[in-house]
């Protein structure tokens, strides 16, 4: 007879397999010496990675994606800092509902954002470009940045600011000498999260891409050609490693920030 604990263990095991098995298949087939993605495995090769090096269209897509992700990360973090600072330090009318509206895109289906931005941009007579994707990505990334930065700003003891001011420093310098260093881990985490979200976002990028595809859009386009599949597996492997490393780095900074200010950790990604 199975006891309760066993059922739970089985459930967890199955859940984890479904969650991670597909991702683990990526590197397996990326190094498989066969142009058909199926078992049994044939042999070890790195040629699929070499193919990536010579694919010009891929390089353009990567450049587009990086440009979009970096710009998005910078802008959404900037907006996040402003919003987090405002919401934690200043009381203004209807603060809660305003913050609620700002956070809404977090749960809004991306397809709605994609379609509505597309309609607006076309109607206003603008050409679709990388900037239209950046606009969409800033919209979906900013709420995440605000969430991360709010907790960084909230953990900041207000008397630190007052002490700096009291010791004769100006408000402007106080911001750079006291507030920024203490929320810096939050800012780094916010930059990394926004970068990661933007990098693998598909729907908005697909709707607003125009003639310049991002990496996910490029990959989607290539899936029509079965012979390209193994090199996509190689590409996927690289992306997988990069995403996981970014997430680890982001969490490292968040934790270091918490340790530095001597505050107890209140959960996190990992």
């Amino acid at each position: 007879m199975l006891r309760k604990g066993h059922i739970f263990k089985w459930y967890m095991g199955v859940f984890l397999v479904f969650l991670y098995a597909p991702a683990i298949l990526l590197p397996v087939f990326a190094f498989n010496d066969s142009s058909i993605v199926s078992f049994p495995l044939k042999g070890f090769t790195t040629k699929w990675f070499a193919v990536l090096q010579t694919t010009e269209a891929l390089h353009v897509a990567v450049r587009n994606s990086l440009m979009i992700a970096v710009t998005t990360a910078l802008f959404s973090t900037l907006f996040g800092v402003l919003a987090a600072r405002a919401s934690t330090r200043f009381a203004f009318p209807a603060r809660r509902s305003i913050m609620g509206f700002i956070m809404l895109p977090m749960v809004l289906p991306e397809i709605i954002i994609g379609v509505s931005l597309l309609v607006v941009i076309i109607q206003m007579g603008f050409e679709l470009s990388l900037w239209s994707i950046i606009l969409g990505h800033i919209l979906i990334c900013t709420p995440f940045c605000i969430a991360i930065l709010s907790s960084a700003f909230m953990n900041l003891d207000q008397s630190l600011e007052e002490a700096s001011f009291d010791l004769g420093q100006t408000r402007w310098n106080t911001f750079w000498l006291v507030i920024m260093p203490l929320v810096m881990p939050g800012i780094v985490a916010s930059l990394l999260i926004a970068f990661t979200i933007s990098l693998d976002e598909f729907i908005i990028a697909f709707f607003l891409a125009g003639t310049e595809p991002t990496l996910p859009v490029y990959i989607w386009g290539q899936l029509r050609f079965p012979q390209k599949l193994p090199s996509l597996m190689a590409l996927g492997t690289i992306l997988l490693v990069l995403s996981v490393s970014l997430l680890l780095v982001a969490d490292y900074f968040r934790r270091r920030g918490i340790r530095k200010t001597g505050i107890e950790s209140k959960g996190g990604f990992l």
Partner: protein
Amino acid sequence: MTQPIIQLSGLDKFYGNFQALSQVDLDIKTGEFFSLLGPSGCGKTTLLRSIAGFETPSAGTLHIDGQSMDGVPANKRPTNMVFQSYAIFPHMSVAENVAYGLKARKLPKAEIKTRVAEAIAMVGLQGFDARASHGLSGGQRQRVALARALVLKPRVLLLDEPLSALDKKLREQMQSELRQLQRAVGITFVLVTHDQEEALTMSDRIAVMFDGKIAQVATPEELYGKPRSRRVANFIGMMNFLDAKILTTSGERVEVDVQCFGKLTLPLAQATGGLEGCDAVGVRPEMLTILTESQAADREIEAVISEVFYYGDMTYYDVKLPFKEDTVTITMRNTAGRSILAVGEKARVGWSASSLLLLK
């Protein structure tokens, strides 16, 4: 007399409809150790923060060193503050914390270095210069906060309950260190506390506050010996109250009818807060004596012991006087040959008219 370093007059502070300070008039003398004492929520912090420049008074004037502080922001005032949380910058070392204000003043590097070293030595933190400030103990953090403020040689140092986060032992040690430090630097200290013992032992003068108003400003002895109202008397130490009725006044003397003690003539000076509205006399527990068989007093009254609290060096008795509902507390030193009385025993209580205060 030199002019007061801090002059407050008619200070009001409203938070919305709530009045946190009401008509505060206060002069703080140059170089004194001044305490703001009062129960929680009476407005001590609000008053201190108004002096520091973190709160803008709704009405009234504030002068520091003869200069109006109207429109002068906190970073331009000749005051520095030690915060209750100490507010040590966690990303800076001890020395960087102490140097912070000097750097803001853009002093030459060499001067900053010597002054920081002096200040760190002054608070007894030699060798801690390079230590990261997170991970310091409570007492050490407080010393850093003190050094960081004193290194700027402010005209006034403001301290908001700086000792309340420390344990009892360390608190007592820091009380005497703080007092010594103040004497050594000669800077005016304004200390906020809700601990009456702390205020009495440390201060040159104390302002007692209730509900946003200043009830009395006096030296510790005056405050304890001549409180101006029942409320102050009750807040500073213990005091017994007996109902009293003023009968007549003639010249410098006033005739009163006191519960249990009967008709008395007291000097007008014993109505410390003025005669008007007086309806009680107060007497400190140590001003009453339980007489031994051989002792006698000018005035005595029969009483029954209803509670005994033995403290080793002292014994606190709660006694019942005839025709008075509440018990009266008497403290007696346990000197040689004095036996501890038991509950229910009869006792003769000696008192003297000169130790009675007429209060409202």
